[in-house]
């Protein structure tokens, strides 16, 4: 919320620029504006910016290429994790600039971002149904969502009870409580993100006219907090 002016609204900015999706940085800006925690990040235009950008960020960091031509950054070699110094970040960027799938693309910069602490990987999604309007989804990350399709949907706006029931409905819900020696995920943190995305004044309701699909993947949830580590918003 708090996005009444057009210049700080990434959805309006992306539409004005004729884009059909928000890039990662704009997506996180949108999430942050709605109160969803995202990792601290800065954009480096190139190697020359790295020292200034690293100033004030906690290591380790991850570097991700920013390009409207690259949909799947990892597959293209555009993501390098666990970098512990400016030197390592510079080397990573130089490596990307030479990667075959990145070389020819339009490059807008490199997102240098603090790495989220370890936790459970979840996916929170959004979708606009032609008849019913916005829906919100939650699932556990990795094979749970990709292979087992263990997800639950609700129509927006959802209430706190809806959010609780969405999580309880997952077949893998027990894992979030801490199975096989892992720490439990904070249920409050997950519910709060679901409400900020799919609740009464949530992101999907406010932008129902513009956002057709959304993926927050992964949302890393520790026993105290939930952080949106990557996000995609499709406009239209």
């Amino acid at each position, binding site marked *: 919320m708090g996005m009444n002016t057009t210049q700080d609204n990434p959805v309006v900015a992306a539409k004005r620029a004729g884009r059909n999706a928000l890039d990662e940085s704009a997506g996180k800006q949108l999430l942050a504006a709605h109160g969803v925690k995202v990792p601290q990040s800065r954009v480096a235009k190139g190697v020359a910016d790295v020292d200034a950008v690293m100033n004030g960020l906690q290591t380790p960091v991850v570097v991700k290429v920013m390009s409207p031509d690259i949909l799947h950054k990892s597959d293209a070699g555009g993501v390098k994790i666990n970098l512990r110094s400016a030197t390592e970040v510079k080397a990573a960027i130089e490596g990307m600039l030479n990667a075959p799938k990145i070389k020819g693309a339009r490059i807008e910069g490199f997102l240098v971002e603090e790495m989220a602490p370890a936790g459970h990987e979840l996916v929170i*999604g959004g979708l606009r149904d032609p008849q019913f309007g916005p829906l919100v989804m939650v699932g556990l990350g990795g094979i749970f*969502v990709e292979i087992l399709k263990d997800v*639950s949907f609700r129509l927006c706006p959802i209430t706190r009870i*809806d959010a609780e029931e969405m999580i309880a409905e997952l077949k893998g819900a027990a894992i979030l409580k801490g199975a096989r020696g892992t720490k439990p995920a904070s249920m409050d943190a997950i519910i709060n993100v679901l409400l900020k995305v799919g609740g009464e004044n949530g992101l999907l309701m406010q932008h129902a006219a513009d956002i057709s*699909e*959304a993926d927050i993947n992964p949302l890393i949830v520790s026993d105290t907090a939930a952080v949106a580590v990557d996000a995609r918003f499709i406009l239209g």
Partner: protein
Amino acid sequence: MNIIEEFTPLFAPKTVAVIGASTKGNALPNVFIRRIREFGFSGDIYPIHPAAAEIDGLTAYKTLADTPKPVDYAYIAVSGAQIPGMLAAAKGHVRFAQVISSGFGEVDEGKDLQAELVSAAQAGGMRLLGPNCLGIYTPRGRVTFAEIGPKETGHVGIVSQSGGLGTDIIRRGLARGLKFSGLVTVGNCADVTPSDLLEFYLADPQTRVIGMYIETAKDGRRLFDILRNAKAAKPVVILKGGRTQQGLAAAASHTGSLAGDDRVWVALARQTGCMLVDTLDQFVDTLLIFQSLTPRPQRPTQKVVLFGNGGGTSVLATDYYSRLGLDVTPFAQEAIDALADMKLPPGTSITNPVDCPVGTLQQDDGRVAEKILDIIYSQGKPEALVMHLNLSAFVGRTKPEVLDNLVAAAMRVQEKYPGQSHFILVLRSDGEPGLEARKREFRDKAVALGVPVYDEMANAGHPLAALATFERFKAART
């Protein structure tokens, strides 16, 4: 104008116009005239005909604007292309027009004609039902399109996007003891949608249970909003056709690709407390339980006791009910001890399921059930009791009144422990004609007492689980 005032001319019309009746008396609208007369319609019927002075003994009028009194409900079954002109000429003289004719939006070449029909209805100042439907069945208004159906006005309100299924619902309802506050077939829903009728039924004091057969919900968001705002004030049962065809053909995101099949409808049910069913039988079965039993959110149904004859049937039902989330668990020791003290004949199982062979149930001509059930109710504290009787095991072995006595005994215990337990009767038979006739007669008696009756344990399980879900929803949300 509130929704009740708006829809009263449809559900209780004082004047009915009929377009398409022939002077020879053999067209579908002639049949409609005959049916509403037989059903006891006492208002004015106005056949509309370009040339005839009289149809079926009734004075005919040239257009909808020429009738002596304004028309509450017009039944229209003539070739589609003529209809827009007729509606536009009504000049505010008609409240509801139901277009039975097809050849509109359900086929590509009829889409323009449907748009024309909608603007004509607007120009004529009326609400439009259909096109491509069968009609209305409204016992309070003595109007019906169906050949047979319950004569009495009941409490179950139905809207159906399929006319044929609408007929099935009325006919099966008649056989099963459902009584309706109304049934409207809406076909292509060019103007009036299932959501409009849902709004009416929610407000209508005559309606206590709502059933909807939906194929497409063009105004899905409105349907969701109405159901959400209703806060499960009345049970709503939805039979959704085409649930597997949903989903986005070309999804760009992960979420989009996962949204296929019927997840929207499942979400709608979970969020609003409405109940989704998969088959026509489940639809009728679920409506029947809500017609007969009052939901009890203060103590949602979980603990179920099975009582009757048939050991294997009890075992199978125990498994089936637990898969539906219901508990059929053995009694605590004091209940078992109290039942053991009755010294019932060998072969009687008293732990829950309570399995009593006919030899046990016919003691004291069936009145033994009162003592058994008294102990079950006072000690076992069931939240629902399913009494099942395998009729073939009784016939020829017991006096005919044993069955009546068993049910009467159960009803007395029900009265002695008000609000303790839902009571459901399963009458099992095998298709043998004599036995089926006996069952039908016996079922009618039980239904008249307000007992929901099912053919098999599994058929009773789904509605019972739906009742439990509805009660839990209300307990958690309201």
